[in-house]
């Protein structure tokens, strides 16, 4: 038995000593337990938390970018719609303007017609009134003339006077 490992005989570092075995077992187990509980666990949790945080931040940034591009598209659509609306509104406005102008023109024409009609009527009325006036004046002038003529011929004649009065009345009644 001794022959097998004689080259290592007396090589102290390779001799299994019970004292060192016991101490190293106790020390390593303590080291393992203490490190697991007070060092490795918080460190692993810390690393994991940070990794999760970084992942979350990256995801969030990606989401924000997507949202941003979505928003951009929405904006573009809105803008296009607004442009279209503006065009229709403008067209409608033009139409309305045209119709208003046409209407106004129509109205104005009517008004003008009415005014001219009224004017004609007025003129007619005026003319008639003037005619009546003229008739009256002519009548009175004629009477005056006739009076003057008659006064000369029928001076003091009550019959004539009566007749003239009757005539004047007739004229007044007119």
């Amino acid at each position, binding site marked *: 038995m001794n022959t097998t490992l004689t080259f290592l005989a007396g090589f*102290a570092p390779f001799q299994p000593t019970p004292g060192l075995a016991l101490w190293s077992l106790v020390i390593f187990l303590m080291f393992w337990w203490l490190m697991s509980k007070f060092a*490795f666990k918080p460190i692993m949790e810390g690393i994991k938390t940070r990794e999760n945080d970084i992942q979350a931040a990256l995801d969030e940034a990606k989401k924000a970018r997507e949202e941003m591009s979505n928003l951009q598209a929405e904006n573009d659509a809105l803008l296009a719609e607004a442009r279209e609306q503006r065009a229709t509104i403008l067209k409608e406005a033009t139409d309305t303007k045209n119709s208003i102008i046409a209407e106004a023109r129509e109205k104005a024409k009517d008004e003008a017609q009415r005014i001219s009609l009224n004017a004609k009527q007025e003129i007619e009325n005026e003319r008639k009134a003037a005619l009546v006036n003229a008739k009256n004046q002519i009548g009175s002038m004629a009477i005056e003339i006739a009076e003057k003529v008659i006064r000369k011929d029928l001076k003091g004649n009550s019959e004539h006077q009566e007749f003239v009065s009757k005539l004047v009345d007739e004229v007044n009644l007119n």
Partner: protein
Amino acid sequence: MLKKISLFCFLLGLNLMVFAQHNHQEHSGSHNHDHHGHSHDHSHDHGDHSHGHNHDHDHGDHHEHHVNNITSSCGSPAKVVHHEGYDPSATAIHHISDANVLTIMDMVRIPLPVILYNKDRGMEFFSSGKFDPGHHDDGHYGYKDYVMYHGNIYRIKCPGFNENTPKFEVQGFDKVVYKDEKGKEHETPYAIIEGKAYEMEAKTIWDGGLLGGGVTSFYDFSPTKNVVGMLLVCLLLFWMFRSAAKAYATRKGMAPKGMQSFLEPVVQFIRDDVAVPFIGEHKYEKFFPLLLAIFFFILGLNLWGQVPFLGSLNVTGSLTVTAVLAVIVFIITNINGNKDYWKHIFNMPGVPWFVKLILTPVELLGMFIKPLTLMLRLAGNISAGHIAILSFVGLIFIFGDAGKSLTGSLTGTAMAIPLTLFMMAIELIVAFVQAFVFTILTASYIGAAVEEHDHH
């Protein structure tokens, strides 16, 4: 950059030179003391511990040994002979072995607690300072029947030795090589006490006698320098990770900073390139703390072991520690093995029965070989790297004839610096690679045990 490198080389060389010189003094400093047999000279200076206790003499046969005329293991008359010369392999092994004292740069020796058990006296607890270790971590004194030899505790084999005077002086140590009836050579270490040689026995080693050890009369459960190093590195790692973990709470929602940003990429690397690909996205979390603990435990200790003169730890290079890690991996793998895993071992689907006769034993063997390779690979790589560095540094002593020849030392230093620098760079890579390999293989074994097979 080049300036910095050359400055570093210069400082390293200076360091090595000082170290070599120091070594020389230690070896030659006390040649004048003579202690023959019982004529023990009590006049030597007890205060001069740093130099005076390798009482060497008899220049007649320095390269031989040692303790003469061993007649009994319990105190044969003997004289101490200093071994001249430099033994690179013994030095390397000594420097990467565990010890009951923490030695920094062969100058500062920090005593460690000693916990021993023997059947006669039960548990004993004292400081390794009682041995007053000196050069080579050999103790100047013994305590009860224990002595310290090369940083390790030995027991005097003599029954009832010195029970009444707990403290006694040790003059030196030696090894005797003898041949047994079969012609096989055995090495027995002796302690020289009061001019007598006493046979010593090493602590119990669980090698089943395969590595020159075995169960002896005592057990050593001391927190050795490897244990102290392990504790230090674990505390350092815990402090680093704790400050990073706290930052996740206090700096929520902010970018990582400081220790947090230093450790996070490594943790994420283990998760994304080791745990998830091998175990799977849904199951890895249960085993992830183990993988991280293994990775940083091994890496931390590998790197700490790279630092020279800081206790020269070789924790991940000692088979005991890697064996403990391998056993943990083995247990975790097998208690989490699902039906498919066991089916693949005992009854491989889609294979004819006569192939199964061979395949099942192979698979069963593989179950144990997997953690065994984990254990050997790590210990082998790290120990080998340390031995390579120590061998290159050893060039200085070989060329310098153990500090006697200055020209030789200089030549050796000039050779050792680039080689050591290169090796240290390689070792740095090995430190990371071995930690990574151990972790990735653990992940793959666990992954294989929990994998779902839908195709059968």
